[in-house]
């Protein structure tokens, strides 16, 4: 269930390797979401960030189901991620079928249980006194995560925070806001490119993202740059063949 120390080390090295000068924030956060579910033994992971309206936006998810669960939270304005964001503290629910969870978040628990998840843990993404967003961990089984796992989860959430604010010495609050806006704007750009490709390649949204990512990796380019070129009509991506599906 839990990761070996060696694997944990490998992941942190992998993450720090991506924090180079010209790094891609969306690529980094998506990778982090995937590694979170792997290392923490949870089924899925989603990362949300707050914009200047104080509204949380989904920036990364380890799977399509996790994406839908996160979007439910953001649309119904209820759920552990919002609580963790508002309180700045971890929120844990061992069983979503539990009466207290259902009373607290009626729409969230219904949607999440329907998607096949039974327990949830939300960790705040904090920079000093400032909460930037939250990391949400979903499990298909009931039960709480061990203290050790939560500590590791919080370390990964902190890594996500560093990823967002790493580019400069962030002594100043306005630079944090600026970096946050850049991350959210990158996400907007990628959504536009995904939508563009659903039409031009006649694929669904997830496949569109896979096509974008494959092209960016194969050509060693940033996802956001590729997305920009696609939306501006400067780059035409080939229709994926059946063998290319991952």
């Amino acid at each position, binding site marked *: 269930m839990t990761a070996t120390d060696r694997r944990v080390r490998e992941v942190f090295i992998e993450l720090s390797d991506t924090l180079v000068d010209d790094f891609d924030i969306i690529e980094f956060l998506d990778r982090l979401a995937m590694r979170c579910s792997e290392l923490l033994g949870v089924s899925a992971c989603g990362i949300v960030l707050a914009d200047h309206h104080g509204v949380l936006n*989904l920036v990364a998810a380890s799977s399509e189901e996790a994406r839908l669960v996160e979007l439910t939270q953001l649309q119904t304005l209820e759920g552990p991620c919002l609580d963790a964001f508002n309180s700045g503290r971890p929120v844990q629910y061992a069983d979503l079928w539990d009466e207290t969870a259902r009373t607290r978040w009626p729409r969230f628990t219904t949607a999440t249980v329907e998607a096949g998840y039974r327990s949830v843990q939300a960790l705040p993404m904090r920079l000093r006194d400032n909460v930037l967003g939250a990391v949400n961990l979903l499990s298909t089984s009931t039960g709480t995560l061990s203290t050790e796992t939560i500590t590791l989860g919080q370390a990964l959430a902190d890594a996500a925070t560093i990823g967002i604010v790493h580019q400069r010495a962030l002594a100043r609050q306005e630079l944090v806001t600026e970096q946050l806006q850049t991350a959210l704007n990158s996400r*907007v*750009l990628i*959504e536009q490119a995904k939508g563009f490709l659903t039409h031009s390649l006649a694929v669904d949204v997830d496949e569109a993202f896979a096509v974008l990512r494959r092209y960016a990796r194969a050509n060693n380019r940033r996802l956001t740059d590729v997305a920009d070129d696609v939306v501006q009509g400067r780059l035409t991506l080939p229709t994926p063949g059946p063998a290319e599906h991952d």
Partner: protein
Amino acid sequence: MTACARELSASGAGLALTRNGGLLEPLLATDPETGELDELQFGLGEGPGTEAMATGVPVLEADLSGPEAGRRWPVYTAAVDGRGVHGAFAFPVAAGAARMGVLSVYRRQAGLLGPDQLQDALVFADTVFVLALDRRRGLSTDLDSVIEAAFVARRAEVHQAAGRLAAQQRISVVDALALLRAHSYSSGRSLREVAVDVMAGRLSLANDHGAAPPTGPHDPKETGPDHVEKEQEED
């Protein structure tokens, strides 16, 4: 603009928009002096606003007469020297690849905006973005609806739908967003609902430069990509 300048305790604020992603043209300013500060930037091709437009990221300069600003924009800072303007802040009026312009705020005193003022400025920029979209479609909408639209403007579905429309109609994402917004306005449905229908292929918006949608928003029949293709060819 005046409200924006007041909230940010600025001496002035100016708005410049591009036509079809080209050069920035100053459109509004709280006063002639601010207008000139904007004109100079776009005329010289450098300055915080020009940079915010090029990068899509807010540019915050605490002091235009400082050495750092001088290195960054040598010609512009020289040109505005002695005008008594120090703080200069530029916010992209944009969402993803849809860059419409830049909102510039100038202050007499040196120093950065406070965290709350910074958040306010970003909300102003979002509101201006929606107003500029509406202007493009010739809509005159009430402020409540604009603020509401600015609020949902970052939702993933809205931008997926804008990208999809841009590909379908061979238009820019700016025009695609304007089209979505116009449809939302004329049908009385939320931007998000319209976007979800576009992504599901239930709604195809023709770029007719009018506010009226070509097909009913409640079309019960699912239309596949093939159908959408055909509609596009008829354009």
